């Protein structure tokens, strides 16, 4: 049985707390984001990490790559269309055509 963890600002997190998620990281500054991500990757009991879209830019590239590659936990980006754009771009580069439409 695995748990969900949430990384976001306090406003973002309240809703997830309401559902009963306990592993919530309230983050404000860039360092806190990085620390939270590193911490969550080390944990064994967390299966999915929900992270707010706007914090993604604050994570250094090397850590981002690690996030992309890890299966447990799996990172899900919530909020905004940012993740879709990234995905579209990746598809376009790999296949050669934009299959998303």
């Amino acid at each position: 049985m695995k748990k969900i963890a949430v990384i976001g600002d306090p406003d973002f997190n309240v809703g997830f707390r309401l559902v009963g998620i306990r592993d919530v990281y309230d983050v404000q500054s860039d360092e806190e984001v990085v620390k939270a991500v590193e911490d969550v990757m080390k944990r064994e009991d967390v299966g999915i990490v929900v992270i707010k879209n706007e914090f993604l830019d604050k994570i250094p590239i090397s850590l981002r790559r690690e996030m992309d590659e890890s299966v447990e936990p799996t990172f899900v980006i919530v909020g905004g269309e940012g993740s879709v754009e990234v995905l579209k771009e990746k598809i376009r580069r790999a296949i050669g055509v934009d299959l998303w439409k």
Partner: protein
Amino acid sequence: MVEVQPTRMELIKLKRRIQMAKRGHALLKMKRDGLIMEFRTILEDAKAVIEEMIKKYEVAREKLALAMAVDGAIAVKSIALACHAEPKFTMKRKNIMGVVVPVIKREKVRRSVYERDYGIIGTSARLDEAVSAYEELVDAILEVAELETTLKRLIEEIERTKRRVNALEYKVIPEMEEAAKFISFKLEEMDRENIIRLKKIKTKKAKEQQ
């Protein structure tokens, strides 16, 4: 041009390597096609699920904002702290052609009003709605987690495989073939040189004997 020794042994080795590279190339091509097929079947599902999640997120935020505005932020936050029944799910790993992807089995995310950790009397219907919306969002997130990650992994693998196929097709194999051609030309040339040399020696000897 590759630096090679023009010897027969080198030629045999090269020919073997070319054969191997060609076999690998065919295999990788098949892998690439298989991955793309897999990718296309998942793409449609993933698209729908991701879009749905984005919509659900907007709805959930709106409802929560409303609940917080009407009931007060502190009330909502204190209820949030009371909730401790975590959504449950199990995770497995699946292997699609060498790509490890997660498989998530959702167990119980949505609950009825009575199963929640706060009392019904002290709270409003708006809060219930917000919680329901967030439960749906978490449900959607679990679905997205599986599909989006699978999609991302497949794309990466497709790109990598494609690069290898192209490298073999346009760089490695042609270079080795050129080297093989060079060696065989050189060997023929040496053969001819030898024949001429022998003939010269022969005529020289014949002259001496006269």
